[in-house]
């Protein structure tokens, strides 16, 4: 929806290690930089020594830092603003926080945040408590004590000081895990560096591994990417992650529709953050119910919807599988319900911290019977706000469950969001849905949307019963009549299809009559757009269609497709959207570009693949 031109900064990360001069930050940073180079990255580094030669331990003046900017290509500077900060003490935090991107990740050694050290860093209040870190992804790790415990079990007989010197390696291990690197290079480096002292080699390697394992165990996730705001569109901006944007979009929909917001959910990576964000905002009146499992999460939301709340459940792949039966109930009883699925690497438990787009078929078809629901997909972190809002709007105006697909990459990724006011948001037309008169019947419908009315307990004189058995048209009574069943099956399908009349037409970026149309959906937006943009600049005859409305598709989709000689569908799975298009619009031929590595596309690989198609 946010369609403005953007400054893309994809696949480049700035990371800064900072600590006391004695903490070995230069070593850690340069080792990480070297690894980046070995892995074929473009890098730029910037060692940031303390100005004073012997500044007192624990003071801001004594902080030593090392910044690394790395990426697949095109790195020309060590970066102005860091995405990740590793702060080994309060002073390091103090000294560096201003140059960390909002929503960036701040990893701290929480052991070092005792009262004394906090004061030494000239903090007037504890930054963990005073809210000053609210805008960052704060990861508190007791690095000192964990390092100690990891080493002490080896019984190497090292003194405390030597043990504490290993904590930089703990930090290095942790960051290595977050960026998907093996420890082989770092271990080699340690063995080399301490080759004279076997105990030190063991200790440092233990610390390195402990940090790595911790990150894996607690499912620490590296943010995905950064998109800087368009400099030419005036307004107020702030950084936002996709998960936070979903939460805010839901809150906005509740305010706009004057319905109370209810979330029934069960924690699961990478969707938990949405619940955790919402629960912080009890001031807005949101009711957050952490249920005993995914089924209770969605079922409590169905109950809340029946009782008139704007009801939402959030989850990720395996959780969506568990919700299938209940989604069918909401579909059958035609209750508004928003199901947010933050896709992760599958199948089964799969790769919980990685990204993928492989729940599309499940979202469309993962239920018994003919059970159509609306499916949307957000394209960028800030898009998540708009599509969460739209999901609520469609759910309530059309009385239907809506599945909103995002993914780990969007959910944890951050970008600048042009702050919206609720006045700018589309109106919600619920007055028709929530009113009834004497002629009312439970399954009577609005002629335009085919939505039934949302008559809720408390409304006098409209007591009625609904349920999951097939219902008679209009009356809503249980019916086993064969002809009625077919009629209702088609009516429910038609109701979802009618949503087409209320959503925007499909747009194309580039000439709308061309050689090749690149099709994408959901969270791959930024990268595909970047690739197509570059190809267009190189004069290639390509255009790009980004789909956010999946089911139903925009009304003009066939018309759009018909203007192109070839269509290629790019997605992070084995071709699920392509399959869906073959069902919906079998009259076109679709080529595919797929990647299933738990990783986003890169612009270069997309360009290469598209070029191959162009020249074939």
């Amino acid at each position: 929806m946010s369609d403005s031109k953007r400054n893309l900064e994809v696949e480049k990360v700035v990371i800064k290690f900072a600590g006391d001069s004695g903490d070995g930050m230069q070593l850690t940073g340069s080792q990480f930089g070297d690894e980046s180079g070995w892995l074929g990255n473009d890098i730029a580094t910037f060692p940031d020594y303390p100005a004073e030669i012997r500044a007192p331990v624990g003071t801001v003046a004594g902080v030593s830092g090392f910044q690394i900017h790395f990426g697949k290509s095109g790195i020309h500077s060590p970066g102005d603003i860091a995405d990740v900060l590793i702060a080994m003490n309060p002073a390091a935090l103090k000294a560096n926080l201003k140059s960390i991107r909002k929503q960036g990740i701040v990893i701290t050694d929480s052991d070092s945040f005792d009262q004394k050290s906090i004061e030494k860093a000239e903090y007037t209040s504890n930054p963990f408590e005073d809210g000053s870190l609210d805008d960052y992804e704060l990861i508190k790790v007791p690095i000192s004590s964990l390092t100690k415990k990891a080493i002490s079990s080896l019984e190497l007989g090292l003194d405390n000081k030597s043990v504490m010197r290993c904590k930089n390696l703990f930090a290095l291990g942790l960051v290595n895990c977050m960026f998907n690197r093996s420890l082989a290079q770092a271990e080699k480096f340690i063995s080399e560096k301490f080759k004279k002292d076997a105990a030190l080699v063991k200790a440092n390697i233990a610390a390195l591994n402990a940090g790595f394992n911790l990150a894996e165990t607690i499912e620490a996730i590296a943010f995905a990417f950064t998109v800087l705001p368009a400099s030419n569109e005036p307004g107020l901006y702030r950084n936002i992650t996709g998960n936070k944007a979903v939460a805010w979009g839901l809150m906005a929909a509740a305010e706009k529709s004057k319905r109370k917001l209810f979330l029934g959910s069960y924690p699961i990576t990478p969707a938990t953050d949405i619940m955790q964000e919402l629960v912080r905002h009890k001031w807005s009146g949101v009711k957050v119910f952490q249920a005993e499992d995914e089924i209770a999460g969605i079922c409590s939301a169905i109950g809340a919807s029946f009782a008139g709340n704007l009801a939402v459940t959030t989850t990720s792949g395996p959780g969506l599988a568990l919700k299938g039966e209940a989604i069918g109930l909401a579909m059958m009883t035609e209750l508004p319900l928003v199901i947010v699925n933050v896709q992760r690497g599958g199948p089964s438990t799969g790769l919980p911290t990685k990204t993928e787009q492989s729940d599309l078929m499940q979202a469309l078809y993962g239920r018994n019977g003919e059970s159509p629901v609306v499916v949307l997909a957000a394209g960028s972190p800030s898009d998540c706000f708009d599509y969460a809002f739209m999901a609520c709007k469609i759910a309530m105006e059309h009385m239907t469950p809506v599945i909103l697909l995002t993914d780990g990459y969007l959910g944890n990724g951050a970008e600048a969001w042009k702050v919206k006011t609720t006045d700018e948001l589309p109106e919600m037309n619920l007055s028709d849905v929530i009113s009834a008169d004497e002629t009312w019947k439970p399954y009577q419908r609005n002629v335009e949307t085919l939505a039934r009315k949302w008559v809720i307990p408390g409304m006098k004189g409209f007591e009625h019963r609904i349920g999951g058995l097939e219902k008679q048209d209009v009356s809503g009574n249980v019916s086993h009549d064969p002809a009625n069943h077919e009629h209702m099956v088609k009516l429910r399908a038609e109701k979802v299809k009618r949503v087409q009349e209320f959503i925007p037409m499909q747009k194309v970026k580039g000439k709308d009559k061309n050689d090749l149309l690149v099709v994408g959906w959901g969270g791959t937006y930024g990268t595909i757009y970047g690739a197509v943009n570059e190809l267009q600049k190189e004069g290639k005859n390509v255009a790009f269609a980004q789909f956010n409305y999946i089911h139903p598709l925009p009304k003009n989709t066939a018309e759009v497709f018909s203007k192109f000689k070839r269509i290629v569908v790019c997605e992070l799975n084995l071709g699920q959207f392509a399959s869906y298009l073959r069902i919906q619009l079998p009259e076109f031929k679709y080529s595919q570009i797929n990647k299933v590595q738990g990783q986003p596309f890169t612009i270069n690989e997309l360009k290469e693949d598209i070029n191959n198609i162009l020249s074939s």
Partner: protein
Amino acid sequence: MGPEVKTCSLTKADFVSDQAVKWCPGCGDYSILSAVQTALPQIGKRREDIVFISGIGCSSRFPYYMSAYGFHTIHGRAAAIASGVKLANPDLSVWEITGDGDALAIGGNHLIHLLRRNIDLNILLFNNKIYGLTKGQFSPTSEEGSITKSSPHGTIEEPFLPGELAIGAKANFYARITDSSPKFMAEIFVAAELHKGTSLVEILQNCVIFNDGVHDAISSKEHREENQLVLQHGKPMLFGKDRKKGIRLNGLKLESVTIGENGIAENDILVHDAHNPDPTLHLMLVRMSLPELPVAIGIIRNVSNSTYEAKMKNQIDLAQTKSKYTSLNDFFKSGDVWEVK
């Protein structure tokens, strides 16, 4: 008994819906339906503020027959759906209708979590010790050895005792009644509604088709007096034809004694305290079984505790009082924002 209640002008007939009741003739569900319709006018709620939520099973057709809001949901999930209804609108009187399979097989987890959360719902558990709707398989309450469609050689599982499981899951209100005592049922339903927090009422219900007579030793007219210990808070635990028999505590065991025999006097008999937060004696009552002891009937446990929804409301109210934001627009603009001109 008969607690003091608000009344309103509605009558039993006002709660009868226009749908034909479709249980087998003679099914115990009829008398339960009638008892609920009798009880409702006594709770002083308007029809539109009453909601019946059921799962799937014969018993779960119940909502169709009530002139009130109703939702016949999916198998086992009524507790979770009813929780959502109540949290969304705490002013409603919410009744969960469920069977022994619905509540204790597929729905067991939702039940125990609901009980510990103490959301103010009334659960009516129709226990016929069989899966009725699917034509007669054993359920989690079927006695060991039961011959059913799915256990032609007899079941090999120890059944749950619903009251025992419930109290193990922190239930604050648990009552057990039979489908053959209509007036008493209605009284208990009123008490369940008056109790703030989750109220679990287990109804020993007869399935004439697949498990006929399974509760006869307890609920039939001929055995009732001798085999039921009808509990009343504050009253001695007496039973039997002349109310000469009673329950006494002997160490950590309950025993049945006769007043006048072996020097037993009325004050040897335990007095029922449903309000005691300590569940020890309640559990002993729940576990009493024939033939040694009569079966405890009535409200076994009825303890006050704050409800989930009240605590949720408190937190929201407090957050709103303390909030620095008066609107979302405020909030969106707060904190770290920058201006592009």
